[in-house]
């Protein structure tokens, strides 16, 4: 969607989406598994994708939209290339993750959770990622950084900025 090349990858993705829907369609309570797979495919769940799901599964769009907005894992907006998740779970909080979050906001010039203007980073606070022994912890895509102090933040971000 919104692509400019001529390979019709948008169509190709729609084809894949339809396959996903058909794979799950038979089972009971299939909507959420379909949404998970669709989000894996697109990275987020734009309205157009929800419409296709609605038509093919015979579920009203309003209901799908209701489900998508209920669960925090489903996103209506495209996320940054690097998704930063800051753990604000109890173990991390007690060890100062609040300050790490502040520092990240400062570094990325964001006022809270969100995506940077250049689309490179999105910042998201989350609850316990099950690595409490390393508290405070952040994750950037699949990389984990533990035992952080605020002063570590600029270097970490720089590493990804340089990578582009």
């Amino acid at each position, binding site marked *: 969607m919104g692509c400019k090349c001529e390979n019709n990858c948008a169509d190709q993705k729609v084809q894949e989406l339809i396959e996903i829907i058909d794979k799950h369609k038979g089972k009971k309570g299939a909507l959420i598994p379909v949404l998970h797979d669709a989000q894996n495919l697109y990275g987020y769940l734009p309205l157009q994708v929800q419409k296709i799901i609605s038509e093919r599964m015979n579920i009203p769009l309003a209901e799908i939209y209701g489900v998508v907005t*209920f669960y925090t894992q489903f996103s209506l907006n495209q996320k940054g290339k690097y998704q930063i998740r800051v753990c604000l779970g109890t*173990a991390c909080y007690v060890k100062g993750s609040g300050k790490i979050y502040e520092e990240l906001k400062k570094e990325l010039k964001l006022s809270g959770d969100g995506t940077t203007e250049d689309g490179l980073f999105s910042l998201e606070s989350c609850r316990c990622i099950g690595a409490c022994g390393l508290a405070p912890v952040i994750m950037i895509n699949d990389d984990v950084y533990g035992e952080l102090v605020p002063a570590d933040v600029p270097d970490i971000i720089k590493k990804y900025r340089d990578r582009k």
Partner: protein
Amino acid sequence: MMYKSHVLICGGPECTKSGIAEINKQFERLLREKSLENEVKILKTDCFGLCEKGPIVVVYPEGTIYSEVTPDDIKQIVEEHLVNGRIVKELTLGGKEAKEALKGLEEVPFFKHQLRIALRNCGVINPESIDEYIAKDGYRALGKALTEMTPSEVIETMKKSGLRGRGGAGFPTGLKWEFASKAQSEQKYVCCNADEGDPGAFMDRSILEGDPHSLIEAMAIAGYAIGADQGYIYVRAEYPIAVSRLNIAIEQARNYGLLGKNIFGTDFNFDLELRLGAGAFVCGEETALMTSIEGKRGEPRPRPPFPANKGLWQKPTILNNVETYANVPVIILKGPEWFSSIGTEKSKGTKVFAVGGKINNTGLVEIPMGTTLHEVIYDIGGGIPNGKKFKAAQTGGPSGGCIPAKHINTPIDYDNLLSLGSMMGSGGLIVMDEDTCMVDIAKFFLEFTVDESCGKCPPCRIGTKRMYEILERITEGKGEDGDIEKLETLAKNISVSSLCGLGQTAPNPVLSTLRYFRDEYEAHIRDRRCPAGVCKALLRYVIEEDKCKGCGLCARNCPVNAITGELKKPYKIDSDICIKCGACMEVCKFGAVSKKA
């Protein structure tokens, strides 16, 4: 094939992050080099609960624990230990006091006070191998139940064992199964709550990742007991490794005929499906979880009807927690008398805690019910770092409360925790030291509930928000007389009029901190002072003249130029300009900057 030694490499979450893959590669390469690949077997296991000291490698039969292993250490371990049979003492856990290394896992203080039932296989077997699970008596309990016991004998055994739910409220498991078995229906379901929502708890993750077959076996036993042929495991999507290992385990069990039709040649059929959560804490609540499996917004439903009669798709359903299930096969094999001989009068068996926060050894510990908090924190946990004082332990997550130092010798069980105003919950145990502000902690949990309230009922949706606002005001130094009373009234109303457990227990963190630390609230409100030095608005940064060497480093680091002075003379902070960022305190090499409450 007989192996001379086994090398157990921790594949737990923390060790994986600190470079286990490279260590694994090194072992494989060096063993091949020494032609030992047929004598030494490398096994990837799950978390040993020693994450602080990771990456962890354990060599059997000696049971030597190597800690903080680096890829460069492997050569020495292979050449010395595996070839020459000499333990490399300086690389072992507590290597300096080399005596301990020789005694093996059971003798390390961290393990000595523990009793591993639910975690019995975690870190011992390769979770991706059904054969290793079977070698550890796996699926024998299912065989015994199906071929030697009637469903009601299974239920009777569970009831006699005294096992209570490990996921929250501690409801007797056998009784739950009995209700569902008595419900009349063609179709029934067995569900597992693997949503692990309490922030700061990760024991279910360890079982899912380290011993997925125990869960499958237990759910099949439950299915047999209540007459269900289909089960669902509801897992947090944040646990991708758990999801992949469960999928592998289910596939293996199907291939071995341990799931599917006519299990153990009987007419019992049972199969399992995974469902992924999508990041909503309330979905850990049993009715919300079922609504979510049905593919809808995961909002709780009123009870009654209870799930034992009308659960998933309106059919009789039981839901148990991961750790609850992990106990089931052992109870069937060793008998209910054995299980009920462990623990206290009303809380049998063990409980796994995820110990975190301000404590030296963080990680999972499994202790018999009745162990004191003191033993957990000092004997197992190694005490509080940096010589600080223990202030309180928080259990039960956002539904629980704090246990202050004066109750540190209370034996931990369901009823004692409740009477102290906390609860067992799922087993998060966060240790707090003197630098933790209890008002701030209460605010932290309330913020969590405000975020996670599903919004279905007003007392929870609006009431928790009001409580949060009051707490926010107090921590900002804008508290008023009467705020404490307002909090107490709100708390009472929210607990009695909310629909589900989330709202009903949301005020607990506030009530329990008020119970034990009321003076801290009062200090914030009356004296505009945060005794622990946490609440930013109530702090002042000052430079102590006699300690300041006048190096000027702080002034150069202050983002708002609040610090002035002449080199070699004491510097000064202008508190009207200071934004309390703390940079000066961090950079001063002489400890001259301090926070004044």
